[in-house]
């Protein structure tokens, strides 16, 4: 050691000296001590503070329930926020695009063509969207060379009468196409429709299948077939061109929805919820870590104390534990009831 040591140097060294005991170690000791320092009904018997177990289990349950509650509340909150301001008519329709395929066993060509298929959502009285039906319309389209150079094309709209279907069926039968349909009208408008158009020759087959089992605002199917010079059917097809008109209507609805989303700043709110969820998760992890440490400390302590406990004391201890477990169950039940009541209140407020 240098003789020239002076106080300032020593103080400087002491100021920056690293901790001898790490924070983690101190934390563990603190958590362990905090358990042992808690009041105990068996302390006088020299046994571990089993009352701590009581409190501790309640604490874990409460943490779990509360955490679950927070997450549930967040989810409920998000639904309400998003939907409560929406004031749409009860039969608003949202559309999503599906891909359907045309199968042509005669050739290896399979064409995928997008077509609008509707999933109908209706809004209930509380304006919460509720999925009522989901229908599939399968409308295979023509193969590559399917444009009708020769042949017949028929248009089916919502107002197409039964006579038109009969006419199509007759004409199809003349060229060997199996055309079957099952259509329901209400006030002159089609409410349900399913039709199959199938052509088979030399073991090769093509088919068109359209199923619409719910009210459609508008639709326009163009179906038909091509025939070659010899009068044989080459392709059968169905196009749903006019449904694009519906897309415009749907686009308006989507635009309106976007406006609503922007107006109420829902995106930011959703991001806020994401952040909140992340924070909650981190908090839960931290709390779990504390609980783990406490569990370990508690378990070690219980083992130590039980080893020291005299055999004759055990039945008495057991009886006391059971008694307090009973109390614990009652407390837990009360706690659950309180939480449930709080959630119900919260839900009512949100509504």
């Amino acid at each position, binding site marked *: 050691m240098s003789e020239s040591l002076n106080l300032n140097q*020593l*103080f400087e060294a*002491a100021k920056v000296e690293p*901790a001898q005991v790490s924070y983690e170690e101190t934390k563990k000791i603190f958590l362990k001590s*905090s358990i042992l320092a808690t009041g105990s009904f068996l302390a006088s018997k020299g046994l571990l503070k089993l009352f701590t177990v009581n409190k501790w289990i309640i604490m874990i349950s409460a943490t779990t329930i509360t955490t679950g509650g927070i997450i549930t509340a967040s989810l409920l909150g998000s639904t309400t926020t998003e939907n409560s301001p929406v004031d749409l008519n009860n039969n608003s329709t949202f559309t999503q695009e599906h891909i359907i395929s045309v199968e042509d066993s005669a050739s290896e060509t399979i064409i995928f063509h997008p077509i609008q298929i509707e999933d109908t959502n209706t809004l209930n009285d509380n304006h919460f969207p509720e999925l009522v039906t989901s229908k599939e319309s399968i409308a295979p389209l023509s193969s590559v060379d399917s444009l009708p150079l020769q042949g017949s094309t028929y248009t089916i709209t919502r107002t197409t009468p039964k006579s038109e279907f009969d006419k199509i069926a007759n004409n199809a039968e003349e060229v060997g196409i199996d055309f079957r349909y099952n259509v329901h009208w209400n006030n002159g408008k089609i409410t349900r429709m399913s039709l199959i158009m199938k052509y088979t020759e030399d073991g090769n087959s093509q088919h068109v299948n359209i199923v619409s089992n719910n009210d459609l605002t508008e639709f326009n199917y163009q179906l038909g077939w091509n025939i070659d010079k010899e009068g044989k059917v080459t392709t059968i097809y169905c196009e749903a061109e006019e449904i694009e008109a519906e897309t415009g209507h749907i686009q308006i609805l989507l635009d309106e929805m976007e406006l609503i989303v922007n107006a109420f700043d829902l995106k930011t709110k959703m991001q806020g919820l994401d952040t909140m969820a992340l924070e909650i998760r981190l908090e839960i992890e931290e709390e779990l870590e*504390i609980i783990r440490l406490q569990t370990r400390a508690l378990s070690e302590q219980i083992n130590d104390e039980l080893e020291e406990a005299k055999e004759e004391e055990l039945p008495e201890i057991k009886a006391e534990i059971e008694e307090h477990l009973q109390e614990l169950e009652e407390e837990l039940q009360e706690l659950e009831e309180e939480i449930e009541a709080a959630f119900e209140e919260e839900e009512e407020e949100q509504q």
Partner: protein
Amino acid sequence: MSIKRQKYFLNLYEPIHERFDRFCRARAYGEMDAQDLMNETLMVAFEKLDELKSDKAFFSFLCGISIRILSNAARKKQASFKDLGAAENLSDYSIETEKNFEVEMLHKCLSKLPDIQRECIILFEISGFSINEIATIQNSSISAIKQRLRRGRERLEEILKFEVSYKVEGAL
């Protein structure tokens, strides 16, 4: 909820852990195990957390509690013979480097000051409290603190000189 309280407490404690560790080692040297002092202080602080006026005052809150704990321990020991040599026996950390040795030397020298001077110097020089803060912790006037610091340093320099010369002679 207790777990929230623990978490809150630990969040307050984490950033000041190193400072508190240094304070305890300097202050407890020769009187009790520094880690015991830390643990005991933390337990008391946790119990009395409601008395904490501001989060920023947490470190001084802990130091105040440590000082009270040590003072109570000293009172209990008054009846028994105070063995100055016990200071060396109670050092609970190894002297591996010269720097550690120097710091331990400082702690040892500090332990030979009267408690009130010792605390004052530790709080000011090692823990970095201002004179005003120390005045609050020690419940004294600012001028008293200044005087304590001045006298404490003078005394400490004397002790240090003596210790250094003693060690050097011993080494020779």
